[in-house]
Structures are given as structure tokens and as C-alpha cells.
């Protein structure tokens, strides 16, 4: 065994250059795989991990303020109850610290018992007056830590004793700042109450599988408790998964592509190396080495190169992906996986070590079935010579460039595998760029959300014709919007939006299913709402309006909307105003292209209104957008490096196999320039079809598929634009040029005599 080990070490040492190239490929493939795995695993498991750490309740019940004892007696009567705790959530509270402030903070007054949130640093609330816990999003944004002081409305300065994380909602700034304070503190400030009011109950059940029964019972015993809404742990997960779902889906697909890319690259590289060394292997067998011996030596060589390269790649990929992923998890109020990532990363390591091992060992083992003399005399290579039955070919046009192309096409399987690797990589890089640019659009362009109006004005509906008559205005109409509650108490509000006529003139989120609404009893609902409520075309949307009335609409269509996570419904004004005559109204104003906004604003001011610019629905989600964009960029860069490697590898393998051909050309008078032209022909044969296939794949398949996945969030045009295509093609041209120059330099550094010996 020691002899085999030493033989393998010598083998690697003797071909240091090639081993380095192979190791680079393995490291890049491992980095790509690790990047995808870190992001996908972290996001996919983030909620469960965070919920477990925070001891998130199985159900959160929210209701209008009620005396604690009244609620507690109902809850205690529930079957299978494990524990319950009660809070009072007070909203729109002013807080300030370190130069930051908010007047929309949510302060949760918590009583004794289980908490339902995690404490990341510091300690839980004690009985001391003036202690608070601060949600980690606010702490991060405002630079707060245990020991900081916070100005809290009606309390004055309070002391931050800990930083909390609550996975039942996203973090600040996606959500409002959240502060926890103990009931003892509020009682010390406002006086003791024997039966304080609460508006939230957190419920833990003994058997979560029987949660449905508990909810039925809870509804049945909720008589007299108004405004009751339940949010289950599974419901929270659905809502949060919507946000991360698009990224997870993309990265799962990318992991599969990364795996395919890695397998093809590593296998073709290892196989070519074995092919090159078959004569030597045949010689060793002729000298008495067994089939097992030569296979073991080859496998050990592959391990010597693959294991450190794979480890390095996994480490690099992990380091690259961890930063942006942790930021994204922070925004989603989720915990980074920490040590839990070790197993998936170990899997990446094992896979990227095993692929080159198998790719090296299997061909050697199979070659063992042939006679040693067949290996020594190169019968293996001869069998790959094609052209039988193609006698009397006419000379084909083209010079050195075309010869380069023919050298590459002679190895059809390798060409195909390289085309697959590069084509899919081009498609994915384009997809990343398109997605990154669309995400940027979402952040600051309302049109990406289907909004076609640019301004709003607080004017009565009767003024709409006057506004429409202003120069530069294409259309103006009253826009009504109210927040309703789902009748089945999801715990979330629904935005009901209505126009008197065709709403698509002002807001046209794309249709995912069904058709546009046609009357006062129909609605178009956002995909997010449809998914959460299980609505389909033809089903009924029941909404509790602020007036207390319930309105029912037939779902005519499902639209792709990002506003309020897709929990919106478009109605006709007649349908909404019939049940909610006091619905908030403003004039939506759609401008003509190149309209003079200043003139329109002046006209609106003359009518007595101050125009407001339409904002994008994710205007407050910049941190989420930034984190996603960072991840996409990291993955695209790693993918680009893999492409560069695949290209260099394809050229190196061609040049290595065709040393003698290049030697003959040089002997015939070809200089370095002609060798570069030869290799450029080879590179073009790979790059041009791969780029074309990649662009087509992205525009025809991947882009539309991802846009469909994203339909619950936004109307995304994920077909790569000319700019993105130009960037990718330019980068590929640059990669090809780098690869050609590098490999040409390697090829011409060798003496012609050496090259002619093959």
C-alpha cells in the first residue's frame, strides 16, 4: 500500500502543471456548489431553525383589547393546550435612539410565561423598571446593543437589556420597529391593574398535528371576543417562504446546474488525463502491475489533487456566500444555520472529491479489460478516429481558423459536454443579471409592479375630469383603497383597490390566471392572497370591511402583484362603494410620455392639490433587495469563473492532445500569431454556439419559468435585455481571448521538436 501511495505522489509531482489546472477546476466547481448550497440551505431551513430557537407558538391569536382573565379562561379551556402567554401590542408609538427615530413602533407588553421570541444577546426582561428588549433589525439599523438607552414615548429613557429576534415577522426596516417591555414596568409607570387588557395570545399545543381541532374549538368558544384572528406557525412559514421562495427555487436549480457543470468538467478533465496516460498504464500492466493496482494508483492521484482542491473550493464558496446570506436571513428575522451547514457542505466536499475520483478510476479500471499491448500501441485512440466511409471528401474552405474548429469538433462528446456547461452557465448568468436588474426596478420603479400612474392627488372624485384635462395628463380617475380583513381571519389585511372604469389604464399587474373583472361582483386577486386563502378562479373572496360589513366577490382572475405581498384585490368602484361608501379616495394620474411634470404639478396645485409621486411597493425593502442582489452577483461571478475555467480547460485539452498538429504547423512556418488563430477557431467553435444556446435557453425557458415562479411577487420581465446580453457576450469574448492567449503561450513555449514527439 505504501508503494502505491508513493507511486501516486510521484505521479502528481511529475505532472504538477496539469494537476494544478485540474485542482483549479475542482476548486471552482466546489466553490460554485458550496455557494448555491449555503444560500439554498440557509433560506430553506431558516424559518424552522429560528422558530425552534425562538420557541415560536403554534398559534398566535390577535383580537380587540380584552381583559386578561376573560381571554385566559377561554384559552385554558382549549383541548391539548401546553402553554399560553398573553401580551398587549400597542402600535404607532414614538421611539428614538442614536439620532434615529420612528413614530410607528410596536411596543409589546409581555406578561410572565413562555416568550415566543429568541434573545440574541443580553438577557431577558427582569422586574426592574425601564428595561426593554429591542428587535434585532432595529438594533442593527440603529446601532443599539445591551446597555444602550432608548427614548420611549410615555416612558422617557429606557435601557436596552437584550436584543431579540421574532421569526413571526420580517425585521425592521421591512416591518415596523418592535420593542418588548414587561408588564411590571408598565404597571410601575401607569399603576397596577388587577385585570389588565391584552390583545394577543400565544398558544402552544401538546400535539401540533391536532392544531385544526384546537382552532375549531377556539373559534367555537370565542363568543364575545371581537376582531379575533389566528395566525398559525405554518401560516407564518408560508408567508415568509413567499419572500425567500423565489431565491430558494433559483438556487436549487442553480445547485443542480452547478452539479451538472462540476460533473461534466471534472469528468471530462479526468478522462482526458487518463486517455493521455493509457500507454503508460499499458506499459505498467505489461510489466506485471495488476488492474487493481493501476486503478488504485490513479484513484489515489485523483484524491491527492481533488481533496485539497475540493476543500479549498468549498471553503471559498462558503465564505463568499455567507455574508450576503446572513444579511438576508437577518432581514427575514431568521437565524444563520451555523454548524448545521457542516453536513451539506461535507456533502459538497464529498461530491466534488468523488466525481474526479470516479472519473479517473473508472476508465482505468475499464481499460484493464483490454490487452496491455492495445493500450501501449494506442488502439484506444485509434478507435476514436472517425471518418470511415467518408472517402473522397472535397477540401473544405478555411485556413488555420477552420482547422482549429475541426480539431475541437473531432471530439464530439467533449464538445457537447463543454457546450452544455457553457450554454447553461451563459443562461444562468443572464438570468442572474436580469433578475438583479429587475429587483433594482422593483425598488424604485412602480411600473415594475404594474402601476401605470405616476402621480396621485388628494382631490375629490368629481375633480377627475379637470385633472384629466391638464396638459401632459393621459388619464385621471378616482382610486379607492381600503384595508379589509379576510373573513377567515388570517391575521393579515387585504388591500382592496377600486377604480370606476377599466383599472388596467392605471394599474395592470399581469394576469396569472382567469380574466379581468367585468362587474361590481367580481374581483381580481393577487397571487399571494390566492395562495394563502386557497382561492382560484371562480371561488369567492369574503372580506371584512372597515365599516363592519362583509363583502363577497367572485374571483374572475388572479394577478401577479407585489403590493402587500400580493395580498390585494382589484374591484370595481361600484362594487366597493356599495359596501364601503367611505372608502379612501384620491385621483390617480397617468402622464403622457415626455410630459412636463412641473406643468402638471402646477396645474394640480391650481386645482388645490399637492401631487404625490407614486412609490414602489417595496420602497422600504431596500435591504432585502440589496441582500438578494449581492447573492445573485456572487453566484454570477463564481459561475463566470467556472466558464473561464471550462473554456481554458477545453482549449488546454485540445492543445495538449494536438501537440503534434500544432508542432507540424509551426514546423511549416506558423508563428505564435497563427497558433493563436488556430486556438481562436477552437474557442469560437465552443463559445459562439454556447452563447447562442445560452441566450435562447434564458429567454425561452429559464426567464419565463422564473418569472412564473415570481408571479406571486411581481410582474417580472426576466428575459435578458440587449444590455445584459451584450455584457455577457462581451465577458465571454474576453474569456475566450484570455483562454486563447494563455493556451497559445503555453503551446508556443514548448519547442517544436518536443511538440512533434506528441
Amino acid at each position: 500500500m505504501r508503494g502505491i501511495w508513493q507511486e501516486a505522489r510521484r505521479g502528481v509531482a511529475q505532472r504538477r502543471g496539469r494537476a494544478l489546472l485540474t485542482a483549479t477546476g475542482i476548486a471552482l466547481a466546489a466553490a460554485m456548489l458550496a455557494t448555491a448550497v449555503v444560500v439554498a440551505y440557509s433560506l430553506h431551513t431558516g424559518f424552522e431553525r429560528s422558530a425552534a430557537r425562538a420557541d415560536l407558538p403554534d398559534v398566535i391569536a390577535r383580537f380587540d383589547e380584552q381583559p386578561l382573565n376573560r381571554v385566559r379562561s377561554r384559552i385554558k379551556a382549549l383541548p391539548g393546550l401546553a402553554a399560553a402567554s398573553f401580551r398587549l401590542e400597542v402600535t404607532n408609538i414614538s421611539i428614538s435612539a442614536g439620532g434615529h427615530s420612528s413614530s410607528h413602533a410596536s411596543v409589546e407588553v409581555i406578561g410572565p410565561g413562555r416568550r415566543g421570541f429568541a434573545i440574541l444577546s443580553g438577557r431577558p426582561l427582569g422586574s426592574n423598571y425601564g428595561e426593554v428588549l429591542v428587535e434585532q433589525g432595529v438594533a442593527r439599523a440603529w446601532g443599539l446593543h445591551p446597555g444602550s438607552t432608548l427614548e420611549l414615548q410615555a416612558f422617557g429613557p429606557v435601557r436596552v437589556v437584550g436584543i431579540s429576534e421574532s421569526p413571526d415577522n420580517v425585521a425592521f426596516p421591512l416591518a415596523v420597529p418592535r420593542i418588548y417591555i414587561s408588564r411590571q414596568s408598565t404597571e410601575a409607570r401607569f399603576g397596577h391593574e388587577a385585570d389588565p387588557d391584552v390583545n394577543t395570545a400565544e398558544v402552544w399545543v401538546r400535539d401540533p398535528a391536532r392544531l385544526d381541532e384546537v382552532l375549531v374549538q377556539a373559534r367555537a368558544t370565542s363568543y364575545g371576543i371581537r376582531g379575533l384572528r389566528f395566525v398559525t406557525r405554518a401560516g407564518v412559514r408560508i408567508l415568509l417562504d413567499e419572500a425567500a421562495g423565489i431565491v430558494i427555487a433559483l438556487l436549487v436549480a442553480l445547485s443542480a446546474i452547478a452539479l451538472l457543470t462540476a460533473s461534466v468538467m471534472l469528468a471530462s478533465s479526468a478522462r482526458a488525463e487518463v486517455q493521455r496516460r493509457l500507454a503508460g498504464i499499458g506499459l505498467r500492466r505489461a510489466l506485471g502491475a495488476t488492474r487493481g493496482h493501476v486503478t488504485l494508483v490513479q484513484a489515489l492521484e485523483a484524491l491527492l489533487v481533488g481533496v485539497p482542491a475540493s476543500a479549498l473550493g468549498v471553503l471559498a464558496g462558503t465564505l463568499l456566500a455567507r455574508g450576503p446570506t446572513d444579511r438576508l436571513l437577518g432581514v427575514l428575522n431568521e437565524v444563520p444555520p451555523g454548524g448545521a451547514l457542516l453536513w451539506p457542505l461535507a456533502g459538497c466536499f464529498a461530491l466534488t472529491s468523488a466525481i474526479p475520483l470516479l472519473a479517473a478510476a473508472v476508465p482505468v479500471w475499464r481499460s484493464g479489460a483490454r490487452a496491455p499491448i492495445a493500450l501501449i500501441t494506442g488502439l484506444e485512440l485509434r478507435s476514436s478516429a472517425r471518418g470511415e466511409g467518408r472517402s473522397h471528401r472535397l477540401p473544405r474552405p478555411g485556413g488555420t481558423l477552420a482547422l482549429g474548429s475541426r480539431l475541437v469538433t473531432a471530439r464530439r462528446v467533449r464538445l457537447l459536454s463543454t457546450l452544455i456547461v457553457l450554454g447553461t452557465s451563459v443562461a444562468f448568468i443572464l438570468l442572474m443579471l436580469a433578475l438583479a436588474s429587475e429587483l433594482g426596478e422593483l425598488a424604485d420603479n412602480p411600473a415594475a409592479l404594474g402601476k401605470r400612474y405616476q402621480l396621485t392627488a388628494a382631490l375629490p372624485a368629481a375633480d377627475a375630469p379637470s385633472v384629466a384635462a391638464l396638459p401632459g395628463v393621459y388619464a385621471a380617475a378616482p382610486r379607492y383603497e381600503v384595508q379589509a380583513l379576510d373573513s377567515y381571519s388570517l391575521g393579515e389585511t387585504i388591500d382592496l383597490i377600486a377604480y370606476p372604469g377599466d383599472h388596467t389604464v392605471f394599474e395592470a399587474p399581469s394576469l396569472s390566471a382567469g380574466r379581468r373583472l367585468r362587474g361590481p361582483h367580481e374581483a381580481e386577486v393577487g397571487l399571494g392572497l390566492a395562495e394563502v386563502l386557497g382561492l382560484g378562479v371562480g371561488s369567492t373572496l369574503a372580506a371584512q370591511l372597515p365599516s363592519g360589513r362583509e363583502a363577497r366577490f367572485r374571483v374572475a382572475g388572479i394577478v401577479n402583484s407585489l403590493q402587500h405581498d400580493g395580498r390585494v384585490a382589484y374591484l370595481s368602484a361600484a362594487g366597493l362603494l356599495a359596501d364601503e361608501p367611505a372608502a379612501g379616495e384620491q385621483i390617480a394620474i397617468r402622464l403622457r410620455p415626455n410630459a412636463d411634470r412641473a406643468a402638471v404639478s402646477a396645474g394640480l396645485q391650481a386645482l388645490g392639490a399637492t401631487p404625490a409621486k407614486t412609490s414602489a411597493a417595496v420602497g422600504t425593502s431596500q435591504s432585502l433587495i440589496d441582500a438578494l442582489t449581492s447573492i445573485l452577483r456572487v453566484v454570477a461571478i463564481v459561475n463566470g469563473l467556472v466558464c473561464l475555467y471550462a473554456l481554458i480547460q477545453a482549449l488546454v485539452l485540445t492543445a495538449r492532445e494536438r501537440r503534434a498538429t500544432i508542432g507540424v504547423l509551426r514546423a511549416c512556418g506558423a508563428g505564435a500569431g497563427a497558433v493563436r488563430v488556430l486556438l481562436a477557431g477552437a474557442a469560437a467553435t465552443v463559445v459562439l454556439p454556447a452563447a447562442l444556446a445560452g441566450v435562447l435557453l434564458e429567454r425561452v425557458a429559464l426567464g419565463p419559468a422564473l418569472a412564473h415562479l415570481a408571479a406571486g411577487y411581481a410582474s417580472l420581465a426576466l428575459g435578458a435585455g440587449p444590455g445584459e446580453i451584450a455584457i455577457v457576450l462581451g465577458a465571454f469574448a474576453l474569456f475566450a481571448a484570455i483562454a486563447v492567449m494563455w493556451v497559445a503561450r503555453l503551446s508556443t513555449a514548448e519547442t517544436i521538436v518536443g511538440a512533434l514527439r506528441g
Partner: protein
Amino acid sequence: MSVLEAHGVTKSVGSGRAARRVLDGVDIAVEAGELVAVLGRSGSGKSTLLHLLGALDRADGGEITVGGERLTGRSERSLARIRLRRIGFVFQSFQLVAECSGEENVLLPTRLPGAPRGGASRARELIAELGIGPVAGHSPHELSGGEQQRFAIARALVNDPVLVLADEPTGNLDTTAAGDVLRLLREMTGRGRAVVMVTHEPEIAAAADRVLEMADGRLG
């Protein structure tokens, strides 16, 4: 007039204690129209000499002139140009490109940047002259050894070089094919060209105008 002149050419291989001087001050001059054979045992350095004369490798010392152009001290680019326009090579193992037909192999040097004009018509003439027209469209692996060597000779001549260097040109051929190749090499000299071939077979060398024997790194 000498097509080829070399004076005091030296070449060592290996380094340190393993270094060995293969050529030790070789002098040679070959006139136009002359067929010269360099005879020597395996490892005597005759192929190394041929490589240096053909600018495929660089000498450690001495001076080599081909067609009036000095090879010593030139850049790689300049040497490539001399190989393209002044020198033709014939190899023992033919060295035809497997993906190209016989005719395409002949055309290869004519398609390189800087090649003299009229290469395509010269290729057609040479193929016809060497009697390989009927198999010009065949792939190398479909040709006999003799046919492959004729295509290799045609490729060596296609840019009309003044010097043809042949390294064991009959080494892989049977007696009949070897005789044909020798006849062709002889015919090449009829056009003001010089031909230098290296061989280890005295019978083959006997076909040359002049035989120089290589021993101990020197030509005798």
C-alpha cells in the same frame, strides 16, 4: 551557390551532470541541386542537426544560414517566416493532420499568414505530379504509408522552399515505397533546391549525391 551553410554548430542536451554535447562543432554546406545524406547510428545527433538546420530548435553555438538568411539570433517570429518560405520538412512518421484529407494537409502551409501566393494551384500540381490525385480526398488513416509520405512531401514542397529537410523519410515504408520516395527526393533537387536527409541505413544514403557520416557529434 550554397543554399545551406553551417559552421561550428554545437548543441547540448540535459543539464548539470546529465548534460551531454550532442553536436560538437558541426560544419556543413549544401549547394542548390544537391541531395545530401547524413548517415549515423541512432542517438548520434543527426536528427538534432536536422532540427537546428530547419530552425525547429536553436543551436547553443555556431552559425547557420539558409537561402542567404542567418538563423542565429533571430526572433521566433522571424524564424517562423523562414520556415514558411524557405524550408520544407518531411518526417519519418508523416505527421499528417488526422482531421484533414490528404489534399487539405498539402494546403495547410499555404493558408498560413505570410505564405507565398499561388499555393492552391501549386498544391494541385504537386498532387497530380506525385500521382496521389485519386486519393487526395481521403483521410490519412485511409491511405497507405507510401501515399501518406507523398502527401507529406507535397506539403513540404507546396510553398516552393529552397531547402527540404527529410528525417528518416523511408523509415516507416516498405522497400518499394521507399524507392519511390527516394526518387521523389532526387527529383526535387532538379529545380534548384537542396535536399538534406538523415538516415541510419547506408543503402538509403547511397542514393544521395554526397554522404556525410555523423559520429561523436561531428560530421565526417
